[in-house]
């Protein structure tokens, strides 16, 4: 009997690419899916981005000043004895606007909330793009596809990593759509922005996607029913978003929430992208963001690999 059948050597890269390509094809070849991927950010942008008009709160039009404002004498303590002062409304509204801008600048780092929020939305889309990875592994298990792959000599880790890579690509794709839309709708880039920053943006998204999809995969790795990953998604997605700086800066949060927000990896992604786009670049802050995101990605993907070794085969 000829036992020398090991003429082929299943390689990590080849297997990984084959499996990832399969996942990518599912949406890249599907026009309806692609349209959904573009519509989703578009709708968010229309509903959230432009309707949460925070800087409007502080604008003079909101205050609606008359051309002249009379202030009675008893309201004035210095210099004493003056019976009445009349203020010029136009000028006052200018002062209000300046104060408003100042508040916006102090809290958000930028003067328009739309730019702030648009970047937050990039982080949101990364979360939704990665949260399907858990479901797709359950689906593969159900259809028997997983069993087929497991009976081939392809390295086990490629099964998990193909899903991770797929969500990372999907996140980058959808994030690009959001950024492009935001730019068209008036995102104000800071003076430190250059085209090269886009690479940094993608790198940051890539790192967070690896970490997040590893979590979603790890919790679904043994699940046989769809409800399981969906429950997990329901449980963690909203808290994850609201305990980050997607909508509001950490400094504005109640004290108990601040440490949670500072540990939330979404905070670091959002900050990194804001640094690279709308904020004047603070290199040291950016480096911290990247270190945090890298550690998050490495630790969680190692957990993912270990779990895939242990639990893919029951």
């Amino acid at each position, binding site marked *: 009997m000829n036992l020398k059948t090991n003429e082929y050597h*299943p390689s990590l890269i080849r297997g990984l690419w*084959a499996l990832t390509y399969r996942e990518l094809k599912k949406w890249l070849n599907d026009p309806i899916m692609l349209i959904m991927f573009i519509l989703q950010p578009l709708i968010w942008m229309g509903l959230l981005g432009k309707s949460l008009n925070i800087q409007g709160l502080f604008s003079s039009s909101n205050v609606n000043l008359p051309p002249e404002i009379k202030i009675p004498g008893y309201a004035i303590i210095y210099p004493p004895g003056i019976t009445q002062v009349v203020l010029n409304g136009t000028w006052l509204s200018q002062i209000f606007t300046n104060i408003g801008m100042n508040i916006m600048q102090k809290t958000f780092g930028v003067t328009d909330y739309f730019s702030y929020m648009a970047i937050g939305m990039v982080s949101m889309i990364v979360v939704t793009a990665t949260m399907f990875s858990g479901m797709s592994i359950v689906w593969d298990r*159900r259809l*028997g596809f997983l*069993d*087929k792959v497991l009976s*081939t*000599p392809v390295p086990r880790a490629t099964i998990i990593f193909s899903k991770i890579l797929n969500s990372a690509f999907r996140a980058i794709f959808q994030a690009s759509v959001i950024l492009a839309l935001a730019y068209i709708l008036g995102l104000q880039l800071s003076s430190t922005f250059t085209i090269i920053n886009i690479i940094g943006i993608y790198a940051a998204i890539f790192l967070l996607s690896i970490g997040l999809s590893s979590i979603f995969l790890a919790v679904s790795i043994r699940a*046989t029913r769809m409800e399981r990953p969906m429950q997990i998604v329901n449980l963690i997605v909203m808290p994850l978003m609201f305990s980050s700086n997607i909508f509001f800066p950490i400094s504005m949060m109640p004290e108990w929430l601040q440490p949670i927000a500072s540990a939330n990896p979404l905070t670091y992604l959002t900050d990194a992208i804001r640094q690279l786009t709308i904020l004047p670049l603070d290199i040291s802050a950016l480096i911290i963001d990247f270190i945090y995101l890298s550690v998050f990605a490495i630790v969680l993907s190692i957990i993912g690999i270990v779990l895939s070794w242990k639990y893919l085969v029951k």
Partner: protein
Amino acid sequence: MEEVIRAENLTKVFNKNIVAVDHINFSVYEGEIFGFLGPNGAGKTTTINMLTTVLKPTEGTASILGFDIVKQANEVRKVIGVVHQEYTADEDLTGYENIMLCADLYGIPRDIAKKRALELLELVNLIEFKDKHVETYSGGMRRRLELACGLINRPKILFLDEPTLGLDVQTRAAIWEYIRRLKEEYNMTIFMTTHYLEEADALCDRIAIIDHGKIVAIGSPNELKNSLGGDIITITIKENVDVTNIIYGIEKVKDVKKENGNTYKIRVEFGETITPIIIDTLRQKGYTIVRLLLSKPTLNEVYLEYTGKAFRDVEESRESIIKQRITLRRARK
């Protein structure tokens, strides 16, 4: 004959209490089609999944071409081909893309893989549909594609889990033909499972009957049938005389029963060779035979004998039911 699969006390317990496979022992020899026959829930898929390294045994072990299925799982994976009970091909890819995906998983060099993929698609008559999405395939086409995928690495041993599940009778016969042809073309050993008695009978050289996770009988279809005590010859003569003793006197006749009329039920070991002797004997004594029927026991009777119940399915887990439902739905397309 060389032993290519050997299972020793192979056991799988799910969730600490469901004993799906219960200390089974068997050997499969080079070049044969070995069948696992049993109703749904008997433990066939679980056995295949352990042999193909998809599941870890709870107890016992097995070796494939001498490689241990747990300790040398990766070696095992290289020499086997698997066609699962489910349709595992990706619906969103074409038939050709699906085969190439399998080739990538085995790390077969691209140029070899391309040649082989086309050759296999030709063999299973799917070449003209190779660029169509699998979504559009019928159940029979899907099963043929699965067969082709399972052969991409030129396996020494091919595992087929319920290869005709849910298919209609004609398609089923066509798949049997493909399996026979593949076996000849590539000189493989085939381990298959089925819950169709006719299928086991028609295809397998040897059968193991599995029930509640245990092997209750093992042997070639004929051996199994003969083990029931042989064939039944039903004979009717014209004369109104009791010939029981004459028939009973013939060598190798095991039992004779006179039924109403002049009909006798004779139990013999090998019906084909004894029948002419009975005819001759009766003729010589001047009797006229008006009717004769030789019937062989079917596997159904074998099954009944060994399990003590008719061939019926047992209760199954939710997961297997869902998987099966998906497979059946696609088979009907």
